[in-house]
């Protein structure tokens, strides 16, 4: 006797449009492109700096042009979305237990934001001086 055949469903090509949560997930993943692009731009800036004043000047002009500023604004927006969405998930990745009770998720998120703020201020101070 042969086994009855099973139906094997296939995930549709645009599966991520099925639910708002999937769309938010894809956005979170896509924002890494903005972060990567900004990191590459900074690396190129370092390279141009090493090549001398003229090369650096050219990079700086492009960086401060309207297109350059627009790129930085978009990269900042992407980075903020990426940061917020990952901080949101941090409590389930890093649960902390004190005896029989779990530290509330909001407190773990707050700790992330505090460290983020302290590191950002420290970098601004270092760059400022």
């Amino acid at each position, binding site marked *: 006797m042969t086994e*009855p055949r*099973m139906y094997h*469903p296939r995930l549709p090509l645009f*599966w991520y449009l099925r*639910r708002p949560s999937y769309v938010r*997930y894809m956005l979170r993943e896509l924002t890494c492109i903005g972060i990567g692009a900004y990191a590459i731009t900074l690396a190129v800036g370092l390279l141009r700096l090493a090549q001398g004043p003229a090369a650096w000047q050219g990079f700086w002009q492009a960086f401060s042009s309207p297109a350059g500023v627009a790129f930085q604004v978009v990269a900042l927006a992407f980075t903020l979305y990426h940061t917020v969405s990952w901080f949101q*998930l941090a409590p389930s*990745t890093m649960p902390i237990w004190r*005896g*029989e009770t779990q530290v509330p998720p909001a407190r773990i998120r707050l700790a992330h934001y505090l460290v983020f703020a302290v590191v950002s201020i420290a970098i601004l101070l270092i760059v400022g001086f």
Partner: protein
Amino acid sequence: MSDRTLSFEILRYRPEQEDEPVWQSYDVPCREDWVVLDGLNYIKDHLDGTLSHRWSCHMAVCGSCGVMIDGKPALACKTFVRDFTDTVQVAPLDNLPVHRDLISDMEGFADKLGRVEPYLITDEDPGDNAEFRQSPAQLAVYRQYTMCINCLLCYAACPQVGLNPGYLGPAALALAQRYNLDSRDAGRSQREEATASEDGVWECTFVGECSEVCPKAVDPAGAIQQMKLASSLDWLGGLLPGGRKS
């Protein structure tokens, strides 16, 4: 006796009859306090005895009646008909092979469950009368993962399961973490052969929907990320001189 009529649209698959599932509608006289499972049972008992679906406890404990309800994975016994206006769509769970109508295949999951060795593994044989003592604080760390009822809603919610049918998946990995976190267990390295394999935790991209749809408030997504961290630390440890090899 009925409070109102609700149209049940059910995705049916009868392998002897059709190659692909087809929708079929039934008008069901529902009472206000019914859940979707009551409607399915009404169809089976009064309208069409050929409809196939699974159920057992009717109280969100057995995990048998998981289906897609209006496109979302849910337990039919935990979803009230009063939350629907005119129509409710019921389909078998996404991402799993279908035997018939609303009956999904569980064999693949059973195999995956076996691969993660979901039982206590100890280094030494403790003997017949040994006690495994555990404090309430040690229990609290893993207790939520013991709540899983294997309903597979998390598999239906996980696109990675759909993209890679070999992926061990949320429930199996969460259960592996349940034992990894157990103070009486020493089997984490042994389990990593499966959990850190190409079908293991690294297939997860943290969509997070598995935890959202879980009817028992288990957080498989969190468990998987914790296992990624542990697996990475084990790998790093193995690189150090005298480090732990796993």
